[in-house]
């Protein structure tokens, strides 16, 4: 099935942001 370039980038951005959340929240100090 044909998927336009913008849709691939959209999916890629979603995955990237998910990874970002898991990485950055490792640095949150627990209260």
């Amino acid at each position, binding site marked *: 099935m044909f998927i336009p370039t913008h849709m691939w980038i959209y999916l890629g*951005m979603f995955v990237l942001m998910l990874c970002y*959340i898991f990485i950055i929240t490792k640095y949150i100090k*627990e209260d």
Partner: protein
Amino acid sequence: MDTINKGYLIGMLLYFVIVLTVGYLAARATRSENDFALGGRSIPPLFLAFSFIMTFTSSSAFVGEPGLAYIFGWPWFWFAIFCMPAVIIPATLITKRLRAYTGSLESLTIPAFLRKRYDSSSVGILATIALFIFYVAAMIAQLKAVTVIFGTMFNLSATLSVIIFTLVVTIYVTAGGFKAVVWTDVIQGSVMVLISIAVGFVAIRSVGGFSGLNSGLAAQGASLVTLTESTFVTPLAVLLMPVWLIFLTAANPYLVMRHMALPDTKKKTLVSYFIYLLILQGVILFTYLGGLSAKVLLPELSNPDYAIPQLIDTLMPSFFGALFFAGIIAAIMSTMDSMLILLSTSITEDIYVPYFRPDLSDKGRLFSQRVGIVVIAVLVAILGLIKLPNLLSLMVFFSVSGAGAAMLGPLCLGLYWDRGTKQGALVSMVLGPLSYAYLQYGMGVNLFIAGVTGGVIALVTMIAVSLATSAPSAEIINRMRAEL
């Protein structure tokens, strides 16, 4: 549409009844100024995430921005792509500090926080005035969206649309405050998420899949299927778009007030809040696929703002259409109600109480917030009836860019940089929005370039003026950090 669709009418009336009931229930749970402005800081992260996304996407996700997808084709899709980092990156960077600092300094609004952070009533007043100017303009743009929807659905005149809508919003926000805002966002947000996915899916299917969409778009203009285009979504604009969006979501108080309302700053609360935000933002802009498909299915639309309403009317069953239209109205309400609460609380806290009634009781403040909402809503409705903007989303972008440029220096630097001073904040709040407005409207510079330049000028002036003036009191900074 020549005749009024009864399904739409019943759906809309039902929605108004739900909203007013929620307003009534929330009013019973609202006993203090804190309850009214921030829901008593006891609302679960999932609900706040719904509320943030519904407010951020606002009417422009369903009316204005699909209109831009209709005009510019796939290049406009960059906007949907960059909305995800624009929501997530600022949220991860400012939520914990903002929640902790506003808690320590007992601030219900961003202007109140700035007033205490910089120990300056001028900073609080100037912030309130700047937000008032830009958010009143943003609310007028929301009224334009209302007239588009009610015009398409019920052939209602612009005047009657504005009056009915303003009346409903004013009643439930005045009664239930922030709790009513969040609860209505959750009810409609959950419906809208499902419907955005459905609209995207049905629209793409009706044009014969992505390959059908692209060949249909290409037949109408080669620039509709390219990565960028040469008039508005230029390569430079695409590069600056995420920076501009991040400035907006980091610095617009009507959005970041959700971060302030989190129940606590524990790791578990924050992680779940961020993930909910990402998932909701990820699916809500599938409406752009509707805007693109409308270009193929309805190429002769006189006003691109009508792309999604017309598409729904053409493709969807009546019941579905009623839900969708009620959802759009909810999205419009969720932007307008947040701005009303923020402005009325700011005016009460930063102007009315300190200068006119310093001895006002909590009950009196609550009453003042409610009166403020009615007064501002009436003012917006009157201004809206005098003149409505032509292209909705551009008016919204102007308002949130201006307010963002005003708040970026004092708010975002104020959270991370202890050396920031009140003089820096004051100059930044004036020069940021003025330089943005001059670039865009005085010199005709592209929205994204003007927005980013305005933001950079705001940050640079904040740093330069702060360094040139004496450091703020260490006592306030230490008190602010008490809960971090």
